[in-house]
């Protein structure tokens, strides 16, 4: 999530229209297959970056994709790319900090595609610049809490009946900051850790109903990260130096593929886990 808060709720379905050139969304292309044929995947915060990468990867595996964003128009290029490549998509305007928006997005998905198999909560508010814990503004903390912790609760409650009906999967996008803490983004580490604690508990609660709950901790070359690199090229050098695979993950090919794994039957015996897709930058 970036930009200003929006009033949510309107639903649009841009299933027609031409291909949109968006190399930042699809630089290496998704892996194609049928792992998610007939399944419906809802992704929050999917207008760009990791969320868009997950949408494109799931669509390339046959999923119906529900793309949510605070501003529906922002998500149109992603939806149009899906449609241009033969997929099925819809866009739902949704501010995840508003429970009614989340409920409406889930209901719209169910109404349009007949059910919901996978809920991916990816949206996160602006993290802000690196700071010591004592210097983090209250506004930043509140944004982190509302978009990560509060919205995870909303997404989980809204999705559960539908996931249980189809033995589905809930995925939270987290970070290695939620595994090992973070020196400069302490609030981010707290909320990502909190999401992992929630996921582990829900995995226990919902396992008997056949619903799996996992986390995905990515390292991805998002537009925000590209901007950061342009401003400070040394950061890219440092990051690559401690990443054994010597590249920052592509949102679609690298991170989207990991999300497809957690969404699909390939991971049918995996729950309560954090899948770390960081090119080896973090090792447990």
């Amino acid at each position, binding site marked *: 999530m970036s930009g200003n808060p929006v009033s949510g709720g309107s639903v649009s379905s841009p299933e027609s229209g031409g291909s949109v050139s968006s190399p930042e969304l699809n630089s290496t292309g998704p892996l194609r297959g049928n792992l998610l044929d007939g399944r419906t995947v809802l992704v929050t915060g999917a207008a760009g970056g990791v969320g868009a990468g997950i949408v494109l990867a799931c669509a390339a595996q046959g999923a119906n994709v529900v793309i949510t964003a605070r501003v529906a128009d922002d998500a149109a290029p992603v939806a149009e790319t899906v449609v241009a490549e033969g997929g099925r998509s819809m866009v739902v305007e949704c501010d995840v900090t508003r*429970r009614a928006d989340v409920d409406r997005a889930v209901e719209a998905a169910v109404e349009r595609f007949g059910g919901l198999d996978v809920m991916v909560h990816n949206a996160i508010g602006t993290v802000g610049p690196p700071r*010591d*814990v*004592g210097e*983090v503004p209250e506004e930043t*903390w509140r944004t982190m*809490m509302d978009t990560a*912790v*509060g919205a995870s*609760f*909303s997404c*989980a*409650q809204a999705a*559960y009946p539908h996931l249980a009906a189809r033995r589905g999967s809930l995925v939270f996008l987290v970070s290695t*900051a*939620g*595994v*090992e*803490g*973070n*020196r400069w*983004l*302490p*609030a981010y*580490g*707290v*909320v*990502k*850790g*909190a*999401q*992992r*604690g*929630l*996921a*582990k*508990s*829900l*995995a*226990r*609660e919902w396992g008997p109903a056949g619903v799996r709950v996992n986390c995905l901790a990515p390292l991805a070359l998002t537009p925000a990260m590209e901007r950061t690199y342009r401003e400070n090229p040394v950061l890219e050098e440092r990051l690559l130096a401690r990443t054994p695979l010597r590249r920052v993950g592509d949102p679609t090919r690298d991170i989207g593929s990991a999300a497809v794994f957690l969404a699909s039957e390939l991971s049918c015996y995996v729950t*309560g886990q954090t899948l770390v897709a960081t090119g080896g930058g973090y090792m447990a």
Partner: protein
Amino acid sequence: MGHGPTGPAGAGARVIVAGLAPFTEWLTAGLSAAGATVRLADPADGHPGAVHPDDVGRRPVGAALDDAARSLGGVDAVVHAWVHPELLVAEPLVDVPADRWRRACEGSLDRIWWFAQALGDRVGHWRPRSVVFVIPTAGLSGLTNGAMLATVAEGVRQLAKGCATQWGDHGTTVNAVATRSTLWLPGPGDAFALTDAPVPGAGDPAVDVAPLVALLGDPAASFLTAATLVADGGLWRGL
């Protein structure tokens, strides 16, 4: 906290404890028995349900810490052991009302965050050897019908790691001690039916947690930071 590797961990240490009674009282008893001088610091003492910023925001937390530090004449260790009482009620997440989630779960994280911020304002001046966050093991293990508790606990555990990387420059270690949620319950009941631990029983903060807290403040533990020590009778065996 101790004055040398041969002395008892905790002897002579000046310790600030914040958290939920009676856990804090039991913890204080254990630390005192080890020879530490303890002061409780929590503006919500007597109001354990208070989590609104006006009640326990960063400023009043800081004032309570300052009062305790003045009383002690210095600070060697700070211990945080807060758990919101509503987090100890077993309930499936799908049945948790939004207002309770906000109050108990997010409110707890708010409160602990403000505590860390207030402490962050002071740690460079006080230079305590040790900061310890005592948390329920639920954050590590996940907990059926205890999602709110686990959410808070795992968030706090990552907060401790983040603080450890910042406050090491001051010679301060920051660690977490994970223990059973039953230690915060005033009665013998076990709301979460934890039945498979090698060591049975609810546990006792004075006996089972205080010695670890004292140890973490000892010079012998000065290279131990950003860690989680698990003292839950073997309930969680993930590492």
